[in-house]
């Protein structure tokens, strides 16, 4: 027996039973989120402090059954079978059961009882059960099941202490009580025995002895995950035997029907012996709320109003915080600049690092607000209704309403959005969703939008003061991504990823008050992830961009300006001297910039971006933001801090004052719009492309995503530029 330092507990359960709430209650802030190797399914693990020592707890995705169909469910099955790379064998399974939905929840429990791992059942939502007049005789229930049952209320932290004790006891005892599980018809049992023997004969080739429950899944789930894995390992050896055994059973009915019938018979026996339920289910608050929210007319309106409200709140709510951050960083730059000796190091720190990182951090409030709204909507249960409303439109594009949730997450950041596609069973639908996810304007684009909108779009009030032109433009950019994504998905499902519209079966969880702890933890982890990216990737790129703009520093130019400074020292008044020196500094910086590597690259691509109304600086800043979108803001910040105006003016002012060679303003409304549209449609995020690779396991799809989106972005930017010019927007 291997001696490991910590035991490992896995938490499983149906979706929406409060698994994550319980996980948070048991592990608190000790949880870390990572990834399983090779897939984008999250791995959430935390530490559980016991009386003696500690255990690792893994929060697994929700699953109705171990017949795995989506990547999510495959992880659950694989982890429990000890077949998941990067995961320890499981010492104990904690299954969370919703007391108001016992029958369906016990389906999974019936499967888990067939494992060799000890189980503990946490019976959650006891308060709701009581309210629904469901009375459970806990002793009888525990006796019938044959495993320890602990009533809890995860959201109120009730029963947690007792649960910890029971878990500790179970880990120590190390074995599970054996009560007979579901009874299967004799022919199924005998075919299973035969298959098991065949698999054991191939144990050497497989490298392990297949347990009975895995053989069961291989037999019953036709073309399923378990079957595929074994057949692949055996090079197709047992395929014909499998088909034969299935056809012999086929006369009795569909295999999954036999399994379901037997399991529910077992479940009903337990319920009959220990649970009292009312004859009819009462109409609940959720039912009444749903009447309005799922109604085609009112539901749609409420949905649109919610989305519009969220965007307006982001825009207005973050403004005061942004102002504070802007001024703070300006002050820091001032202070550091005066304190360090002038020269390359000074410029690097002030114009490279501080200006770069600062102009990204300023948009953290907006990212947090967006994440907050999405987390709130998910936790209160509304998200499923939104998926329901969206299904009609999605099915017209060849997808299903389930694809809505990952796409909505992509509005905060495409990376968790792509990870969320793990709930979509069919690979083609998953890839289609992944390919259009970056079109959902993520929070990294928000800095670009808000800066350009704040600087160049007037805030004229519309709709009698309810919304402003700035808010409408922002909304328009978001809608643009959606408007392009729909036909793209449709086209993909007709051509490259041709396939049937996927089935749509989604649970609508009961509405509940969002739990502050869950929501804040989610927002915290998203904010942290963004900050870490800002702190590292962008800092690195800011420095590189600064260097490209600072070097090469011609000594001739410096000597020329030094000579002019000498003559300025001869001026009569101190004021005059200061003014001339400041002007000379600016001019020198500008000339250095025009000789830099940056300028050379920018000039090289200028012919390509001129049709979009850009000049070499915008083109260069866009290129520099390809590793990480938000970098364009810090790049522009560096550019304009370095060039003509090196005083401590605010960022927006520097942009407004930027000029082309010749004096005309660089940023006009058409130019601002063309930049924003380009960013709305372009896939510039290196991290996203890497994530697409991880999920699709090939470089073809990320390359395709990059190419098609860049082409779309260029076309879109060109179109909007021409339209804006023709319409005379911005005068």
């Amino acid at each position, binding site marked *: 027996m291997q001696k490991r330092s910590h035991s490992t507990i896995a938490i499983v359960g149906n979706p929406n039973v409060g698994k994550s709430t319980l996980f948070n209650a048991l592990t608190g802030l000790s949880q870390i989120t990572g990834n399983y190797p090779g897939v984008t399914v999250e791995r959430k693990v935390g530490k559980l402090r016991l009386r003696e020592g500690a255990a690792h707890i893994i929060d697994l995705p929700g699953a*109705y*059954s171990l*017949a795995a*169909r989506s990547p999510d469910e495959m992880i659950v099955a694989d982890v429990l079978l000890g077949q998941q790379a990067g995961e320890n064998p499981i010492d104990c399974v904690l299954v969370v059961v919703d007391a*108001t*939905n016992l*029958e*369906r929840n016990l*389906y999974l429990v019936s499967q888990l009882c067939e494992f060799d791992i000890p189980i503990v059942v946490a019976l959650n939502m006891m308060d709701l059960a009581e309210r*629904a007049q469901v009375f459970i005789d806990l002793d009888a229930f525990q006796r019938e099941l044959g495993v320890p049952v602990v009533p809890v209320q995860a959201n109120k932290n009730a029963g947690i202490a007792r649960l910890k004790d029971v878990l500790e006891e179970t880990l120590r005892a190390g074995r599970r009580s054996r009560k007979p599980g579901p009874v299967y018809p004799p022919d199924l049992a005998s075919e299973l025995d035969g298959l098991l023997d065949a698999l054991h004969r191939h144990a050497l080739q497989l490298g392990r002895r297949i347990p009975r429950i895995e053989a069961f899944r291989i037999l019953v*789930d*036709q073309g399923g995950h378990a079957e595929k894995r074994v057949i692949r390992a055996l090079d197709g050896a047992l395929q014909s035997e499998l088909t034969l055994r299935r056809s012999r059973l086929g006369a009795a009915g*569909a*295999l*999954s*029907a036999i*399994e*379901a*019938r037997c399991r*529910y018979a077992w479940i*009903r026996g337990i319920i009959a012996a220990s649970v009292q339920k009312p*004859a009819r*289910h009462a109409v609940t608050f*959720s*039912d009444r709320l*749903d009447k309005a929210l*799922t109604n*085609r007319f009112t539901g749609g309106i409420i949905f649109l109003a919610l989305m519009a409200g969220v965007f307006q709140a982001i825009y207005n709510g973050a403004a005061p915080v942004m102002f504070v951050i802007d001024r703070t960083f300006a002050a820091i730059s001032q202070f550091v600049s005066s304190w360090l000796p002038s020269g390359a190091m000074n410029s690097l720190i002030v114009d490279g690092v501080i200006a770069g990182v600062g102009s990204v951090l300023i948009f953290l409030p907006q990212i947090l607000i967006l994440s907050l709204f999405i987390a709130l909507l998910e936790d209160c249960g509304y998200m*499923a209704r939104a998926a*329901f409303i969206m*299904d*009609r439109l999605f*099915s017209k594009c060849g997808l*299903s*309403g389930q694809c809505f949730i990952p796409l909505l997450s992509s509005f905060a950041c495409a990376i968790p959005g792509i990870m969320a596609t793990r709930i979509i*069973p069919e690979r083609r639908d998953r890839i289609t969703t992944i390919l259009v996810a970056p079109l959902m304007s993520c929070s990294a684009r928000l800095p670009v939008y808000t800066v350009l909108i704040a600087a160049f779009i007037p805030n004229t009030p519309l709709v009698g003061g309810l919304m402003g032109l700035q808010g409408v433009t922002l909304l328009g950019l978001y809608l643009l991504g959606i408007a392009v994504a729909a036909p793209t998905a449709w086209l993909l499902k007709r051509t490259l990823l041709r396939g049937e519209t996927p*089935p*749509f*079966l*989604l*649970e*609508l*969880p009961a509405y509940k008050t969002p739990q502050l702890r869950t929501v804040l933890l989610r927002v915290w982890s998203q904010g942290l992830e963004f900050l870490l990216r800002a702190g590292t990737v962008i800092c690195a790129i800011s420095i590189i961009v600064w260097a490209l703009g600072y070097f090469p520093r011609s000594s001739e130019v410096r000597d020329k300006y030094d000579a002019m400074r000498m003559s300025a020292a001869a001026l009569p008044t101190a004021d005059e001297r200061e003014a001339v020196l400041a002007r000379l500094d600016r001019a020198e910086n500008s000339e250095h910039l025009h000789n830099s590597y940056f300028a050379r690259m920018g000039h090289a691509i200028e012919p390509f971006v001129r049709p979009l109304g850009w000049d070499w600086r915008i083109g260069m800043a866009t290129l520099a933001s390809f590793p990480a979108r938000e970098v364009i803001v810090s790049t522009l910040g560096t550019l304009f801090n370095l060039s003509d105006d090196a005083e401590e003016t605010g960022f927006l002012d520097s942009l407004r004052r930027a000029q082309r060679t010749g004096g005309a303003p660089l940023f006009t409304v058409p130019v601002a719009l063309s930049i924003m549209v380009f960013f709305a449609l372009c896939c510039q995020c290196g991290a996203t492309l890497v994530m697409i690779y991880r999920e699709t396991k090939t470089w073809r799809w990320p390359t395709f995503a990059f190419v098609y989106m860049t082409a779309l972005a260029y076309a879109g930017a060109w179109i909007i530029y021409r339209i804006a010019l023709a319409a005379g927007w911005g005068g």
Partner: protein
Amino acid sequence: MTASDAVLELTLRDCVAGDDVAVVDVIGDSAVAARLREIGMVPGATVRIVHHGNPMIVQLGNTRFCLRGNEAALVLTAISIPLPGQKTACKRLPNEA
């Protein structure tokens, strides 16, 4: 169910909002059929139609699910109707769960 009532087999898609119907079977062995069985669409279970449309909302036990017409058409249900000449109102099969 009295002897004078006939049993009409419909699928879930044919039922209207407000109906309480009993599941007879799920057709086929597709992945979605298996999933429907797993969540509780087994012979004898009661389903209430909450919202008719496409997708529709049904209540199975204490949970609501939404599903499209294609999926609903896989679920065979039974309601009883009076034979002609009788004046009894439309009856449903008794709950079994």
